[in-house]
């Protein structure tokens, strides 16, 4: 079977298009590359969706945590502590069994137990908490002069937030946010290894890599392939976020423009 044929059969296997049965023996390199790559669809889906939705909740959480009103500050602080203080792995388990028991009382919540929605909700809350903390840190380090200038211009409320505080916050938080995005993509590999079941063997990249390692008892081929895909994904994320960083800093003179440091943190 040619490699092109394999790609046609298994390229979209992870979302249920193509050959139903996974290859069982005599795995070729092409099959491993194709299936693990096909699994990456899920990792990218979870990552992008969680980032896109989490961004807004994170902004709200950061504003809440920085608020002087106790009723806004306390819930935001607790939310951030809850999701940053416990392992994502346990969060997945808890959420799954929580959704499972919800389903028993309210059958219409059925879809919550499937990974595409249930796991996404957990990732959404999780990344919102981490990002919220980053944004909160940035919010506190906005130069005092910027806000005084806004006051002097008579800007208040929404206008001041929209035109001064928010852009500056993003600009300051962006390098750390890039880091968080990378780690979020890495965290998506946990989804199918925690409680969420893999339906009809439609798993993510790590699921397929684990499948091959299990069947061949040889970890030295599938895991490096997975590593290759993830390094590629990491580079794409760094590139994309770097573009946005450039856009955020476009008003600064070229000499002052902070070049985003490529030496990012290793840990979340």
């Amino acid at each position: 079977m040619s490699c092109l044929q394999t790609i046609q059969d298994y390229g979209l296997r992870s979302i249920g298009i193509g050959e139903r049965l996974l290859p069982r023996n005599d795995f070729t390199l092409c099959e491993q590359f194709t299936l693990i790559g096909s699994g990456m669809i899920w990792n990218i889906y979870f990552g992008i969706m969680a980032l896109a939705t989490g961004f807004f909740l994170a902004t709200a959480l950061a504003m809440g945590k920085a608020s002087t009103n106790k009723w806004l500050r306390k819930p935001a602080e607790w939310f951030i502590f809850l999701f940053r203080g416990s392992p994502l792995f346990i969060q997945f388990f808890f959420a799954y069994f929580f959704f499972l028991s919800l389903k028993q009382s309210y059958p219409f919540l059925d879809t919550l137990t499937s990974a595409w929605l249930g796991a996404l909700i957990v990732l959404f809350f999780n990344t919102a908490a981490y990002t919220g903390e980053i944004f909160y840190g940035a919010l506190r380090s906005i130069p005092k002069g910027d806000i005084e200038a806004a006051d002097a211009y008579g800007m208040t409320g929404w206008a001041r937030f929209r035109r001064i505080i928010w852009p500056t916050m993003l600009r300051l938080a962006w390098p750390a946010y890039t880091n968080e995005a990378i780690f979020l993509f890495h965290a998506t590999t946990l989804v199918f290894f925690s409680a969420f079941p893999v339906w009809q063997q439609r798993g993510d990249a790590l699921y397929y890599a684990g499948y091959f390692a299990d069947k061949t008892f040889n970890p030295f081929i599938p895991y490096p392939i997975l590593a290759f895909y993830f390094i590629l994904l990491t580079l794409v994320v760094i590139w994309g976020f770097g573009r946005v960083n450039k856009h955020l800093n476009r008003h600064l003179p070229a000499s002052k423009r902070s070049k985003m440091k490529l030496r990012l943190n290793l840990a979340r």
Partner: protein
Amino acid sequence: MHWLFYLSFFKVLLLLAITAPVALGFGFLGAMAARSHFPPLSMLGKGYIAIVRGVPDIAFFMFFVIALDQAFEWTRHQILCPEWTDPIRQGNDFIVCQAAKLPLGSAPEWVHETYGFFLAVITFSIVFGAFAANVLFGGMRAVPHAQLETAEAYGMTRRQTFWRILVPQMWVYALPGLSNLWMVLIKATPLLFLLGIEDIVYWARELGGYKNPKFTQYPHGDWRMWYFLALLVFYLGMTRVSEIGLERLMRRLSHGQATSGGELLRKETTA
């Protein structure tokens, strides 16, 4: 059977107690290698740091557990059965002679479990060693350069400068990173479950479930949600305690240092 569940909490604490110093040691070696002036060594150190960054840690966990096991068995195979001629990898199998099996087929159950735990500890140490190496490398670079130049002016050798000037001073710069790492390490401990260890996640799933073939003495509904809620609270408690402890440690290390933290402490005591 519930005492096994409580015992597994100690497994987690034991893992933390062993992994943290070992990973710190690996990290120190890695950082030293990355700083080295001998190119292959520095490339090795930097490569070790870089690769763990780009790839999800869970992939490393899955990889190293099998890879280490096979590496050990392969080495023993080469030593113990030199007359063996069949290839070790036959199709989808990995075959070594009986004497090279780890642990031996005849070994009691606890040896198997200890061996599994041992592999998990090494795996954790390798992955977190790379994280620690990055933090320590950053800490070493953050020590003011003038300090090192002064040491050189006093005629210290490179080795003396490293051990007497650089190492004592780098900790305060490395501590924020290391405390972050400690938090990440705590939060990575449930991954033991994936490495085939019967840890708290395993027992929470077993004991919380209903219709369990193993434990029929305590029939109850599906309590897994509550078991995992308990684990969640356990981890939150660990995090909170660590935060307080690390805060104290930072205060102590900042004492008398030429950093803003040290300056704050000085003002507090003089005011």
